């Protein structure tokens, strides 16, 4: 029962990842593209958390934490550079 639920969840999150990647390519403005890239990274974090819940290994959540921090830094840097032409 639980294996079926986690399997369906993994397939569904992969479909959401593909939809977000299409949204990154087809975005009209650069800020929408930055926003969609942030969403892509959060979907990847959710995929890693689901995979960690299926296998029971804790170190996949380490990769999820690193991805969340990197997406935060890259989103802030890209948005600030796009609006003010400087990061700091």
């Amino acid at each position, binding site marked *: *029962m639980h294996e079926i639920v986690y399997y369906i969840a993994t397939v569904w999150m992969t479909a959401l990842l593909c939809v977000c990647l299409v949204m990154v390519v087809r975005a009209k403005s650069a800020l929408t593209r930055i926003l969609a890239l942030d969403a892509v990274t959060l979907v990847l974090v*959710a995929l890693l958390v689901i995979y960690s*819940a299926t296998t029971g290994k804790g170190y996949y959540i380490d990769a999820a934490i690193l991805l969340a921090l990197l997406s*935060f830094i890259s989103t802030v840097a890209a948005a600030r550079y796009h609006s003010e032409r400087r990061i700091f």
Partner: protein
Amino acid sequence: MSAYIYDVFVVLGLLVMTLGVFGIIRMPDLYMKLHAASKTVVLGVMVLALTATALHEESVVARTILLCLILVVTTPVSSHAVGRAGFLLHERMSSPGAVDESGSHLGEDTPTWRL
């Protein structure tokens, strides 16, 4: 019995994340897309992270709590950065009754009074 509750949480997280991605696609405006991305997707990730605590292992539970704390702290900052960039670049609101309440982008032919 409690395992089925975690299955319900998995379905709930999937539903919330699907709504968030659908909102990013279908919302007409940058600010509304920001609303969908910053609230809905993060809440979906946190509900899914709650299901990883079903294993009752200490390492998984501690890392899940750390992940939730990091998401709670960093997501408002990044969404505020994107919204500020949109405001500085004169990104238009597409809803019909939208009013820029800061008044810093008023043109010369627009009246000085605001609603």
